[in-house]
């Protein structure tokens, strides 16, 4: 809808939290559902600030949105695997939050699946650290809870 109102050459400017400005096509920007309502009313001089998104994350998001449609249907899985392959756990987390914040089509699923795979066999301590959760169990309560689910603690990866 926004594209119709503006000439096709009209690109959208997105400003990341670290001050970088990215120019993207309306087709790309429209797949970030959070900023969709802003695109509708914007013109070429509008800059949309993304206070929670770093340049690194936006680069990756654009890479995904441009790369996925270009991949053949049979190559989408390979493209997605390649996309997340070299991300560290910290980068995965940052990207997940950026993607969740912008509500990027398709990428929320991919990121959530990737993080799920990452933590599937991890320890409770790893997960606390990863999600920044404070353990509010007393030692006795935690021991009881672990005892109830003792079988689930077999075969846990080293942190």
């Amino acid at each position: 809808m926004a594209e119709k109102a503006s000439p096709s050459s009209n690109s959208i400017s997105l400003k990341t939290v670290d001050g970088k400005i990215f120019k993207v096509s309306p087709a790309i920007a429209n797949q970030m559902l959070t900023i969709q309502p802003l695109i509708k009313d914007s013109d070429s001089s509008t800059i949309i600030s993304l206070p929670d998104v770093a340049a690194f994350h936006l680069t990756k998001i654009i890479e995904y949105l441009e790369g996925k449609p270009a991949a053949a249907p049979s190559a989408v899985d390979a493209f997605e695997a390649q996309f997340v392959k070299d991300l560290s756990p910290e980068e995965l987390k940052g990207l997940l939050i950026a993607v969740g914040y912008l509500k990027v089509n398709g990428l929320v699923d991919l990121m959530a699946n990737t993080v799920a795979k990452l933590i599937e066999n991890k320890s409770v301590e790893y997960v606390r650290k990863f999600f920044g959760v404070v353990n509010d169990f007393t030692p006795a309560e935690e021991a009881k809870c672990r005892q109830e689910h003792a079988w689930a603690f077999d075969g846990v990866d080293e942190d």
Partner: protein
Amino acid sequence: MSTRKRQRSIIKPSCQNVAPPSVLSPLLVEELTVNIMSRLPVKSINRFTSVAKQWNTFLSSSYFIRYHIQRSATSSCLNNHRLLGGGSYGSSFRLSDPLLSIIDNPSPYPTLFGRLLSDIWHDPLIVGSCNGLICWIDYRESGNYICYLNPATGTKSRSPYLRYPSSFNSYNLFGFGYDHINDSYKTVAINCDPNGDTVDEKTLVKVYELGAPTTWKKIQSFPYVPKQSGFLDEPCGVFVKGTLNWLCTRSNDSLVVVSVDLVNDTCKEVSLPRFVDTNRYRVVARPNLSVLGGCLCFSYENRQTHFVLWQMKVYGDASSWNVLFNIPYKDIRIDRNIPNYPKPLLMLNNGDVMMQTSELGDFLLYNPMHNSFKYFEFASGTTLFESIVHIDSLVSPCPTRPHRIRGLPCLYTIT
């Protein structure tokens, strides 16, 4: 909705710098965390109940349990799907590794079943598996109790005593399914006495709601006689969209699907494809019901050479039956002398239909769109087995009184 207002007020013609409402709300992080948790296997979720109190409460909540089932059942990656085998031939029942690893694993002779569910049960009749709960009958103990087990959490329960008349020729059929309106699990037991004088006297149907304080309840009217398979175990009800379905004969001997609605415990007829001559058994040999892609399916043997499968796209709408496939026996490599096969099990996201083709562990992935065949053979040890699909879940088999089975949950380790 207040956020929308805020956006509007920010965007004035003179304003060039706009921003979506910020910032990292704890809600977003929470939403993403729940999203991730719903994709984990049961074992990981059980472990992460020890992360913090709030996690413990949330991961045990009925909301999350339902969310997790929904995700597992529709997920394309099959990491919570397993095959549940055994039962029909006097073997104890067993669970396979997740289907994901089986289908992706190109190893030529993988072991299908990891571990016995228990050493103490023999000759169980598996009635069904629904949302992670296995419903079965231990005939060795007494056929009058129906047992429920969640193998992923190691919890089990048992129905109240089921009283039914046992005359010489009578036989029983069972079915197990889920009432999605009331979030409850129901077992239906049908007792058939072919010598009954009227069709009403031929069948007695009772329903039990899992965990309910009430006992077995009689369904008022069931004027049909379920088809007898002629084998040891009678066919179990096929669960589709809140209903259990059996092939039955009308009083004029024609075939019909009888559907028991688990929400209000009523039964009705569902018509078979009208192109199929259901009045004559010879034309429709070996008729069977199954579920593929969440739709009721009707299969039969055509001219002793072909296996035909119809799918009802819209449940209850007889005009929505269409032929999903019609394949020659020689392509599915089955022995016609063993009448239970092929047995449709599951439809994958790419349209592949998984079928068991022999009791020895032969499986087939058939794609009707591409007419492609992929054969599997699994080492099943020495036992013959018949399998059904089971999806891991956190559902409790007894909402109020769970009983943990000691030592059970190690089924995930292959021995």
